[in-house]
């Protein structure tokens, strides 16, 4: 059985009277690349902060690399084995790139100097420049370098490609894939669903603090299908109350149905309505995400 | 709306300095008897002038003007909101002048209200102190000391950081006070003497005389406007 690197049990965080995270039962297996999706304010960053001991849970518990997130001492050991990029990529404005690297590397005995040099060249980071004078994209690249060179078992990345141009984004995604192939597990949040779809093998979707989806990406995409129907008369509506239909949209005599299960039955019933044409296609992650958060 | 923004940004600093000035005035007045002064040498009015209008009230108010002058676009850059402010349909010089006007108003209130409180505190210990006399000293201080507020505006226009303007401004102002007091040739320009009425106050009334330092006041007010003008020029040329 695959070991879980991250697991939470009814993890909850309340700010005042507002539940930012609600009874979260998250599982991230070893060796996976898990994309963590959610709307703005859905609780992604709060969850990540709790996993890293920056914020204390109001209820529930969690384990990261086998250590409890409620144990401050254990949290230090966890952080020695993970690489982290925060949502806010600001670094110490009074340090140069070189000083930031020297400072960070002092905490990680397994620091990859070879990877550091490679990334410095690849990202074209000016080593003598103060981080306060770097562009947003360069700060993001530096933050990634500081995380990736730690030789971490687990990378926790909060919007790692934010502010990067498409070329740099592609470089980062390929690098992450390579690291995953080398045994590093990755848990990352992103608003760029296409990126998640490109590299993740597992997806967790959070909405209003609650986890609504948590499964492998292939399985998720396998489950969802879009059924396009064309009629030569008015579109019949009553048949839509079939289990598995998540959403439907009618446009004149055309109808589009999104289904998450029971596909064969839905297709059989749709066919019985004698449409002019019926087409069943796959659905991308963006549509699944939009549908999941809408209905939730 | 720029007025609202300027007020909102500065109100906690204003409340803090006003409370501090009131507390300090109250503490000194109420502690009068503990000083065991010989009334024949220094009466209550003389005590108020020496400890407050010449020393602590004067110093605290001057330092508080630097505190009230904090803010502006460089501070907003530090906070990350400068681009938002600059995207609004308002000229930079207008934003600065509004901020300066609000701050100057706050600085004036920070002098006048505590000055008015001195006679009230005096009543609590069975002493009397004319309200008009108190207000006259405060008005002299405000008129002459606004140059330090303008200096604070200039520093906050040129320097970034949470409290860099204060950290640089306080020693400079303290240096001006100390330097002009210690150097024989500059003693006539000492702000403490000029704007506390030291040249005209005398026992037993310890009130402001008829001859105020008009030329010093004129120079100080002129310099205050000049510093403000420089701040406007610098602000217009800042790059973000």
């Amino acid at each position, binding site marked *: 059985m695959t070991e879980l690197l991250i697991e939470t049990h009814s993890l909850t965080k309340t700010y005042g009277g507002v539940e930012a995270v609600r009874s979260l039962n998250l599982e991230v297996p070893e060796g996976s690349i898990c994309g963590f999706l959610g709307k703005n304010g859905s609780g992604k960053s709060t969850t990540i902060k709790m996993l890293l001991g*920056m914020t204390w849970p109001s209820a529930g518990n969690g384990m990261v690399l086998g250590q409890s997130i409620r144990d401050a001492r254990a949290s230090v050991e966890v952080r020695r084995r993970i690489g982290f990029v*925060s949502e806010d990529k600001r670094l110490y404005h009074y340090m140069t790139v070189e000083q930031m690297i020297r400072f960070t590397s002092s905490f990680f005995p397994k620091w990859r100097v070879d990877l550091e040099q490679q990334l410095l060249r690849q990202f074209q980071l000016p080593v003598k420049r103060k981080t306060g004078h770097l562009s947003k994209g360069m700060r993001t690249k530096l933050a990634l370098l500081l995380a990736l060179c730690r030789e971490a078992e687990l990378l926790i990345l909060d919007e790692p490609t934010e502010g990067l141009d498409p070329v740099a984004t592609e470089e980062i995604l390929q690098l992450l894939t390579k690291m995953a192939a080398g045994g590093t597990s990755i848990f990352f949040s992103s608003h760029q669903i296409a990126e998640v779809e490109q590299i993740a093998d597992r997806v967790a979707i959070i909405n209003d603090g609650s986890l609504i989806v948590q499964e492998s990406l292939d399985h998720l995409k396998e489950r969802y299908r879009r059924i396009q129907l064309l009629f030569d008369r008015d579109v019949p509506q009553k048949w839509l109350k079939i289990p598995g239909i998540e959403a439907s949209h009618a446009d004149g005599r055309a109808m589009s149905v999104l289904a998450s299960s029971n596909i064969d039955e839905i297709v059989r019933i749709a066919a019985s309505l004698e449409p002019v044409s019926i087409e069943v296609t796959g659905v991308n992650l963006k549509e699944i995400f939009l549908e999941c958060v809408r209905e939730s | 709306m720029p007025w609202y923004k300027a007020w909102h940004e500065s109100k*906690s600093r204003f409340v803090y300095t006003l409370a501090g000035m009131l507390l300090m005035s109250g503490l000194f007045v109420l502690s009068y008897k503990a000083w065991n002064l010989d009334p024949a040498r220094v009466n209550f009015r*003389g005590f108020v002038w020496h400890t407050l209008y010449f020393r602590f009230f004067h110093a605290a108010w001057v330092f508080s003007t630097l505190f009230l002058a904090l803010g502006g676009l460089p*501070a907003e850059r530090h*906070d990350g909101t400068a681009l938002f402010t600059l995207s609004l349909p308002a000229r930079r010089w207008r934003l600065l002048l509004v901020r300066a006007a609000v701050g100057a108003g706050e600085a004036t209130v920070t002098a006048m209200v505590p000055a008015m409180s001195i006679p009230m505190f005096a009543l609590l210990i069975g002493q009397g102190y004319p309200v008009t006399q108190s207000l006259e000293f405060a008005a002299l201080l405000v008129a002459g000391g606004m140059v330090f507020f303008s200096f604070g505006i200039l520093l906050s226009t040129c320097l970034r950081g949470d409290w860099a303007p204060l950290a640089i401004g306080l020693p400079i102002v303290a*240096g001006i006070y100390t330097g002009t007091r210690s150097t024989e040739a500059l003693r006539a320009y000492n702000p403490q003497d000029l704007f506390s009425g030291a040249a005209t106050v005398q026992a037993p009334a310890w009130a402001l005389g008829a001859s105020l330092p008009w030329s010093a006041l004129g120079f100080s007010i002129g310099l205050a406007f000049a510093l403000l003008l420089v701040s406007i020029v610098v602000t217009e040329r800042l790059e973000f």
Partner: protein
Amino acid sequence: MRTRELKMLCYKSWLETRWGFALALMVVLVFSLGSVLRFPDAARAGLRDMQVHNHPNAALRGVRTYTQVEIFEKLAILWAILSVMLGTGGLLRERRLGTASFLLSLPTSRMRLLGVRCAVSVFEASGLALAAYAMVPLAFPLVHQSYSWGLALRYALILAVSGISFAVFGILISVVLEGGAWPAIIGASTAFLSLVLGEIVTSFSRYAPFPVLSGESYFRCGVVPWAGMSVSLVAATLMLTFALLIVKWRDF
């Protein structure tokens, strides 16, 4: 904790505070030097004493009295305020700047982060005291006078030890108050008030820290203010403990 990590955290704290330290150092050195250079004028009765104090001109009572009244007593207040300001900063400020997440993601405990910052602040405050007081015997020959190095350093040590609670107060106030200049302003004004209050309100004078900081008992009768220094150390320990507890459970 690995030595290299500790060194790096100290280095980071130093980088954060070096300009503030440099400015504070300049202020105290200029004050010390300026005060010494004013001695001849003071001795010629050029200084106007505050009449309410009924003090005879300190300079007329010799170098030692002048140094105590006009330099060390004023330096004590200045140093205390600067020490509090130097102690401000920390995780709340870093949260405002957006770097708290990065620092907290490193494999080191919050306690150690605070401890290192406290150590650097105390070290800087001590350096300020030593430098300011060392300026006195260094500068007096310029006005054809002399002051004992040993005496100056003893006063500096009294100040540094008895004033340690001010540096730690800056640390404490930074974990409680957020926002820009506020911790420094409130810290400095509280320090000033605590020093001045004992002078103007007689019921507080017994507990006033100012006479301890300025080494008044040592000046008057050669007695080191051990009790005051101990109280300061205890207060510093309590404040640091309180700050550690707050930081430990705070959300960032």
